[in-house]
């Protein structure tokens, strides 16, 4: 059988890759993709815990459902913001969006 640690390690690695994507990418859409990876890693983590250590309670599964829902909402909003921003500034590069600086 596959032990729980495997899922947790996979989730950690996926999360780290997502973090790298968020930190390294310039395009806001690509940053958003990194965030999606991180969210998936977290959801996977929850589900793994629920399936192994918490049978019959489903809290982890339910939270994963909510994460997916919130992620969908977040993607919708974030993309709307990005499009709006692109319309105003003709760019979607996060490192060019520094208007709040002193």
């Amino acid at each position: 059988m596959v032990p729980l640690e495997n899922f947790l390690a996979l989730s950690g690695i996926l999360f780290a890759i997502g973090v790298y994507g968020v930190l390294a990418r310039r395009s806001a859409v690509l940053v958003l993709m990194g965030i999606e990876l991180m969210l998936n890693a977290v959801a996977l983590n929850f589900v793994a815990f629920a399936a192994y250590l918490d049978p019959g309670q489903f809290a982890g599964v339910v939270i994963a459902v909510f994460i997916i829902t919130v992620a969908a909402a977040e993607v919708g909003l974030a993309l709307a913001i990005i499009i709006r921003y692109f319309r105003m500034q003709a760019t979607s590069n996060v490192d060019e969006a520094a208007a709040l600086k002193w």
Partner: protein
Amino acid sequence: MGAEQAWLLAAIPGGMFFVIAMIGRWLPRQADWLGILTIATTFALFFVVLVDFLGTGDGLGPITNSMSWTEIGGFQLDMGIFVDPITIVMLGVITAVALMVNIFSVGYMKGEPRYFWYFALLQGFAASMILLVMADNLLLVYVAWELVGVCSFLLIGFYWERRSAIEAAKKAFITTRVGDVGLLIGIILLWREAGTFNISEIIAFAQDGGYGSTYLFVASFAVFLGAIGKSAQVPFHVWLPDAMEGPTPVSALIHAATMVVAGVYLVARLLPVFEIPEGMMLIITIVGLVTALMTGVIAIAQTDIKKVLAYSTVGQLGFMFIALGAGYPDVAMLHLMTHAFFKALLFLGSGSVILATHHNQEMDKLGGMWRKMPITGTTFLIGSLALAGLPPLAGFWSKDEIWVVTEGAWGAWATILFGVAAVLTAFYTTRLFIRTFMGNPQDEHVYEHTHETGPVMWAPLVFLGVLAVVSGFVIFNEVGTALGFPGGFTEFIFLDEPHVYSIHWDFAAASLAAAVIGIFVGAWMYWGGRLDRATAFANWQPGLFDVARNKFYWDDLYQAGVDRGLLGFSYVVSWFDRYAVNDTGVDGSAQTTGYAGFILKHIQTGKVPNYAMGIAIGVIVLTIAGMAARG
């Protein structure tokens, strides 16, 4: 109504102050009649209190009536009245002089602006002063003390269109304020050990040895500072001559007869406390002597008749302090009473002259007024002779008695100095009268337009003139008994043992001699309006004359003190505030913050990835730290 309801004497004029101040403007004659009615009622009530007090017959112990004012923790503060012989004398003086001054003011203040406000303030002053002499505890005394001070301030500055009046009012208030701080400290010190503000209890506490010797000396000296501030003794005397900027009837009431004797009253009231610490009575005596001598010299060189009278008042208050310093409050109160009558008379007489000559109060432009103003001149002569101390006028008896007790208490040196002061008094009084009322007019224009003032003004003069003649006789046991007092005046007021009056023929002779010498020298020097002998004297001793004319340089000394000391200190404080507090402390911290912000803002890129990197690093570090902490 009995003496227990004596608080009405303060409450009635106090209430009328508000009535006249608020609606007096619209009443007929701007409510001057209301003021006279108020004071007349108070004067009548005084006799009710007097009769009731004399009728109690239980050894003339004080009558008290107090109520609980507030209670803080275990400390109860009572407020009440305290009627004893000293209070009775003060009440009589205050109400009698206040009534005369109110009547006189109707003539003197006729047509002045803020007429109703003037009468309102007179009522306010009367209420405060009556409260002051009836208060049974020091806190109430202090309240009333400041109330009379503020009334004095307002009345000195009554003609606030004049800059000199404003300056004089401020000077009076600030100078007395310096003493008042001492008074407050003294009251607090007395309370701290005794745990009560009640005067009788404090005296009893002090006599039981409740205070340490040095402690009591400091406390009583602080109270004494307040007393000499209010009573204008050296070195706080500078405000009283300037206070002559106020209307002349006010000078008569407040700055001659009543308020300035508050210090004398306070010391007399607390004299059992002052007697305990060693050296305190000597200080009181010396202050009184120095004041009497110095103001006697200064008064000689003044040409403003009100200023002469002001310095004379300061000197006479000095006499009262000498009597207190000798340990005889009865003698001080006697002189307080006689002085109140004849000095109020002199001030009102000078007011009559000033009004008749269209506000001329310089001796250099007066002279020969007696012919034009017979009533004023005659009453003024009576007042002058009483002040000079010529028997059988009132001033003779009280001054003579002060001299006797001074000799008894301090011996030869104080006796001789007192004699010198008495001669000086007679001399400048003679000079004042001769130069104002006798001789040839110095200014024909002023002289021609002078005429006797109306009855509303000379009637109070006559009344006070009679008192100035007869009020000294109460010192005799027979007179006192006949009037209903048990024994004479000196047996009426006493501390532990009555001081039985008897004529000392040697002192009576010396007193008469002092008065006669002063009068004779004054007459010789100024008779007929001549000034050549005085001028010759001034030229012979120019230094002495300058010192006297410049009032011993007290004002210059204080001005220099203010200029150099106070303003110098203010400059240092201002410099510290500007550079240390403002530029370094306030601006400096702002600049430091601003500069730090200027440096640190470069950390902020405004780019989201950089912030995200910060978060990531934070997460990593915290996770590692957490794991390390768990082992």
